[in-house]
């Protein structure tokens, strides 16, 4: 039996920081994912410095297909779509990652506190978590966003954080429950450490990798949901992000005008970024659960050998 050597053979998916670096270098999925996400991060960080034209500035080149002058074409007002995309990358990335991180922080705190303390604190927190878990997310987000008077990225962020934290909290709670009675935690408790210290310095570090995996999922959710809400016109149409470019394309009938370039690039970028994040997530999954990445060849040989053994035994005894 040749099971590949991994540091995380425990079924509890316990991983440490050191493994994160290994994932990066050993797993091809993770590598591809990191390259994609890294690319968009760089564009978001430094791209705007290279954009010389004002992305909101109308020009005479109305609704032009991609050309040497406008690589990704122009809008109905003659705005350059490439410039909009680069500027928009920053807002979309900041929102996706920002919403993801804040959501995750809430999930982690609720999950840790709920799992560690148990008792009535757990009962109450679990009930709230489960209620939020079964409430339909997107409709609730639309309801909230529609009623807030101020329309803009901040509203969208708050709405998505309020509606999105429950899943992570449930996962973190389950993880904390299994961690609560570990020897190291017992020892810390016996030596009189404060509860808060135990939670954040004894338990939390052991859950970093799960938090990372959860974070990736949350960021994907945030980017997709954010774009959806923006596309519905629930954000401020004057700011520029991928979703808002799509909103204007939809509002100006880009479809019937045959302006495919207007909505092609934003959607493609969202899909690429999402796929990149998902690849990293699957990679982490494979490392945490070795069964998922066992090669067929291995499995087949192993089975053949076992089959032979069983048959030999049967023949021998009968």
């Amino acid at each position: 039996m040749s099971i590949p050597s991994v540091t995380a053979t425990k079924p509890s998916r316990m991983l440490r920081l050191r493994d994160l670096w290994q994932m990066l270098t050993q797993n091809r999925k993770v590598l591809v994912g990191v390259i994609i996400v890294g690319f968009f991060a760089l564009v978001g960080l430094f791209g705007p410095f290279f954009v010389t034209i004002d992305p909101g500035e109308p020009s005479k080149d109305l609704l032009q297909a991609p050309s040497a002058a406008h690589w990704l074409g122009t809008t109905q007002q003659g705005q350059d779509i490439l410039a909009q995309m680069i500027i928009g990358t920053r807002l979309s990335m900041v929102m996706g990652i920002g919403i993801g991180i804040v959501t995750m922080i809430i999930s982690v705190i609720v999950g840790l506190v709920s799992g560690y303390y148990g008792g009535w604190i757990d009962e109450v927190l679990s009930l709230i978590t489960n209620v939020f878990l079964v409430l339909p997310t997107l409709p609730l987000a639309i309801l909230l966003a529609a009623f807030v008077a101020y329309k803009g990225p901040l509203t969208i962020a708050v709405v998505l954080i309020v509606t999105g934290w429950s899943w992570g909290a449930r996962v973190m709670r389950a993880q904390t429950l299994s961690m609560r009675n570990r020897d190291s935690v017992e020892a810390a408790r016996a030596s009189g450490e404060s509860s808060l210290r135990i939670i954040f310095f004894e338990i939390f570090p052991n859950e970093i990798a799960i938090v990372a995996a959860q974070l990736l999922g949350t960021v994907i959710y945030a980017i997709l949901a954010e774009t959806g809400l923006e596309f519905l016109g629930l954000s401020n149409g004057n700011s520029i992000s991928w979703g808002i470019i799509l909103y204007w394309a939809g509002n100006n009938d880009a479809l019937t005008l045959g302006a495919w370039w207007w909505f092609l690039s934003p959607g493609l970028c969202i899909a690429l970024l999402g796929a990149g994040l998902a690849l990293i997530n699957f990679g982490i999954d494979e490392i945490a659960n070795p069964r998922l990445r066992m090669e067929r060849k291995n499995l087949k040989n192993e089975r053949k050998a076992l089959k032979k053994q069983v048959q030999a035994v049967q023949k021998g005894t009968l």
Partner: protein
Amino acid sequence: MRHILRRILFYLVALWASVTLNFLIPHLAPGNPAQALVGKMHGRVAPQALHALEISLGVSHDPLYIQYFQYILNLIHGNLGISVTYMPTPVTDVLAQELPWTIVLVGVSLVISFVIGTILGIVVVWWRGALMDTILSPFFTFLSAIPYFWLALILLYYFGAQLGWFPLHGGYDADNIDQGWTIDFILSAAQYAFLPALTIVIGSISGWMLGMRNAMITTLSEDYVLMAEAKGLTTWRVMTSYAARNAILPNVTQFALSIGFVVSGSILTEVVFSYPGIGYATLQAVQSLDYSLLQGIFLVISIAVLVANLMADVLYVILDPRVRTGKG
């Protein structure tokens, strides 16, 4: 049985929470529907007219808790208020008109996507490590990250606007055909529903496929599967009767849960296709500040999701003996 009862109690609490949220959100927001409507008319409304509008829209200036009880009382009587978008139609009538469209469209797509996705998941595991798996799995990963509505835009652009095979908006050919159970109407509705359905199937199929794939791989490494292989059973039998039968459990539960989301459907997909369902009604409600309609939609969706969750719980108890014996 006690397990189920506890779940029912929980769903009642969740229902109460969603009803209360539904009540609180609009009341905590500044202004009221009547003022919003007046704002849309640029304020050129006499105070008496505003008052009349407030009465017709059910805006009251009573203390919050009294309004809350009135709201609950109205709900029990099935009174969800009046829709501003379709003035003066009651929200319940609007919902009754929009719901069947969404349920048929999303329901049919859900079944198709579940069946194809689950089968694909089994097939991919069968040829694990082969070309099929190395191409399909990353492809489906990419597919799962695509925003639904963007896919809808692309399909609509190519098959609708460019090739002209499918109509650009609507639910049926309203100019030439009357709504009713005639062959003409059903054919027309099917033609109009094809692209939206395709979008939903493509958008959701990867979830079923990847879920089934991972469950299959985990099940295949169980000892009893190995034993079955060692007994010399055919691969077909091992895959279907031994592995898939158990691996499909999470997918079945997921399916039950998804039934709840049939009602919320694919709001964005419907918006792109201007399909006459709940999603499109949501957009119109947002645009015309139709608060009662939005609340009604959210309420119906919540109830559907809660009922589906309860169904999934019951189904799980029936399908998985471990839950039954474990919880007694």
